[in-house]
C-alpha cells in the first residue's frame, strides 16, 4: 500500500475529460454529485490524502467502474458514497439533497433505503441462513415478517437460490455467497449498488457470473458503481473513473 502526501496541484493529474464532463453532468438532476471532496487520514504526524479535490457526478441508471492502483482511494470513495465515511471537506449531494450534514440516524436511513453494498468478502452473518441474511435489511427497516418472507421468497427465486434458502454461508460456494450478498443488497430496491471488488474472492468464471448478475440489475435501472482491478471487467462498464493517489485522473467511456 502506498501512503503519499498531497502530491501537488490536481490539474496536473487530471485527465483530458475529467473536469469538463463532471461539470456537464452536475447541471442535470444527477443521482450523485460530489464537489471538492477531500478525505485525509492522519497517521501519527503524516497525512494521507486518500481523496483530494474530487468532483464527480453520476446519473441515475449509470454503470460506472472505478479503477486504479492499490491505495489510490477507490474504497475510500465508495465508503463516502455509501455514507459509511465522512469527507473532511466538500459536499455530497444524493438525489439533490446534501447528505454530509445529516445526522447519523438519518444517514443510516439513507443507507437502508437508497444504497446497497456488495463486498469482496461477502460479509454474510455466519450463523444466519441465506434467507435470513437476505432478510436482514427488511428486518432493520422494521418490515413485518409476513411481507418480509414474501419478498425474501421472491428474491430467492429471482436469484436462483430457492433451494439454498436454509443453508448457512459455510454450506454455500463463493459464487452462491456473493449472490446471497447481492440479493441482500437489492431487496430494499435501492437507487444504487456499491460493489467493492465483488469478484475479488472468486474465480474467473464465477466472477463473470456475478458481474452478469450485477449488470442485469443495472439493466433493470439500478445505478451500479463497481470497484475493480480487472481491466476486462472494467471495460464492460459504460463509464470508467480512474483513480491515482486520491485524484481522479480520468473519467469517461
Amino acid at each position: 500500500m502506498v501512503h503519499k502526501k498531497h502530491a501537488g496541484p490536481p490539474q496536473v493529474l487530471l485527465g483530458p475529460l475529467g473536469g469538463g464532463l463532471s461539470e456537464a453532468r452536475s447541471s442535470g438532476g444527477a443521482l450523485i454529485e460530489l464537489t471538492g471532496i477531500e478525505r485525509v487520514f492522519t497517521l501519527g504526524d503524516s497525512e494521507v490524502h486518500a481523496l483530494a479535490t474530487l468532483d464527480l457526478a453520476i446519473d441515475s441508471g449509470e454503470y460506472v467502474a472505478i479503477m486504479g492502483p492499490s491505495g489510490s482511494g477507490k474504497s475510500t470513495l465508495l465508503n463516502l458514497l455509501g455514507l459509511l465515511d465522512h469527507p473532511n471537506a466538500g459536499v455530497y449531494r444524493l438525489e439533490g439533497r446534501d447528505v454530509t450534514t445529516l445526522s447519523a440516524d438519518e444517514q443510516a436511513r439513507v443507507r437502508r433505503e437508497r444504497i446497497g453494498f456488495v463486498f469482496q468478502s461477502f460479509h454474510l452473518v455466519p450463523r444466519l441462513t441465506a434467507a435470513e441474511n437476505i432478510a436482514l435489511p427488511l428486518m432493520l427497516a422494521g418490515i413485518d415478517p409476513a411481507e418480509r418472507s414474501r419478498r425474501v421468497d421472491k428474491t430467492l427465486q429471482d436469484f436462483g437460490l430457492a433451494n439454498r434458502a436454509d443453508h448457512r454461508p459455510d454450506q454455500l460456494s463463493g459464487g452462491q455467497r456473493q449472490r446471497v450478498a447481492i440479493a441482500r443488497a437489492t431487496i430494499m430496491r435501492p437507487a444504487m449498488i456499491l460493489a467493492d471488488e465483488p469478484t475479488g474472492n472468486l474465480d474467473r468464471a464465477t466472477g463473470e457470473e456475478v458481474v452478469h448478475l450485477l449488470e442485469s440489475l443495472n439493466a433493470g435501472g439500478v445505478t451500479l458503481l463497481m470497484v475493480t482491478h480487472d481491466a476486462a471487467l472494467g471495460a464492460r462498464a459504460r463509464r470508467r473513473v480512474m483513480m491515482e493517489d486520491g485524484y481522479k485522473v480520468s473519467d469517461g467511456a
Partner: protein
Amino acid sequence: MTPTDTLRFASRAATGYPLRTALMVLAMSIGVAAVVVLTALGDGARRYVVNEFASLGSNLVIVLPGRSETGGFNPANAITETPRDLTVEDAQALTRAPAVLRTAPLTVGTSEATYGGKLRDVTVVGAGADYLKLRRMELAQGRFLPAEEPNAAVAVIGAKIQSDLFGIESAIGRILRIGDRRFRVIGVLGQSGQGLGMNADEIVVLPVAVAQAMFNTNTLFRILVEAKNRALLEQAKVQTLEILKARHDGEEDVTVITQDAVLATFDRILGTLTYGVAGIAAISLAVAGILVMNVMLVAVTQRTGEIGLLKALGAEGAAIRNAFLAEAALLSATGAIVGYLLGQAGAFALRTAMPTLPAYPPDWAVIAALVTALVTGLLFGVMPARRAARLDAVQALSKR
C-alpha cells in the same frame, strides 16, 4: 428494528456461540443459586428457632436471678450487692399473682444414672408438679411428680433414658440410682423429638427440693411462670416483678423476660444473619456481572465485521445497542432462571438431608436475586453495547 426482531436476533446470536453462552449462564446461575440456597439455610434456621420457641408455649414469663445487663448501664444497679437468690418460696408466692396460672421452679444439674449395671450421664431437672403442664409435655407412662409430696424420692425419666437403661422393660416402679441416691421411677416422658436448648428425652425430673439437696444448693436456676392467657402476659410480668421486689426487700434483683422478647431477639439475630449471607452471595452476582461485561466485550470484538455490516445495511446505533443489550439481558435472564431452579433444588436437598430444618428460601431473597441478576446483566451489558454501537463502520467492515 422491532422489539421482537431485536429479541430474536439476540437469541440467535446467543445460541450461535454455545460455549460462551453456557459459561455466562453458568456464572449468573451460580450467583443466583448461592443466594437462594444460603438464604434458605439462614431463614430455615430462623424459622426452626421460632417454631421451637412457639412449641414451648407462648404464655411464659421467665424469671432469672440477677439484674439483666442488656438494659444498659443503670447507676442504681451499680451499688447493688450480690443479688438475692431465687427460691422455691419465691415461686410459690408467684402463684398468688392474679394473672398467673401456674409456676415452675427449676434447678438444673448433671449427674450419672445407673440401673442394672448400666450407667449414663443425665441432665437432672429439679421441678415442681406443674412443670409438665407448663412445658406442654406429655407422659408416655405412669404419672408426673406428686404435688403433695415435695420431698419424695421419685423420678420421671425421658424417653431416651428409658430405652438406654431399661430397654424394652418398663421403668415404672424400678429403682434408679442417680449420683449416690436412689429414686423410684414413677413416670416416663413422651418422645419430644429434637428440642431447643434442652433435649427432654435425656432428662431426669426430680422434685425440686430433692434436686436442690442433691446439688447442695438453695437457689433456683429459673422460675417459669405461665400467665392465665396471652392477653395477661404483660400483667403477669409486672406482677411477677412486683412480688419478687417486695420479697427481696424492695430490690429489683431479678430479670423477668417473656418468650416474646427472647423470640424477637433470636428472630432478629438470625434474620440479620440471613441478610448478611444473602449479601455475601450477592457479591458472586456482581462478579458474574463483571464476567457478563467481559464476555460481551469479547462478543463485540468477535462480531466487529457483523456490526460493520449491520451499519452498512442501515442499522441505527440504537438498533445495534439494543441487540447487544438484549443479548446480555437474555443471557442473564436465562442464568437467573437456571440459578433459581438450581437453588430450589439445593434447598430441597437441604430439606431432605435435614428434615427438621425448614430450608425454604424467603420470597424477598428470591426476588432480590433474580432482580439483581437481571439488573447487573443489563448494567454491565450497557458498556459493551455502546461500544458496539459506536464502532466506526468502515474499520469494522475491514476487520476479519
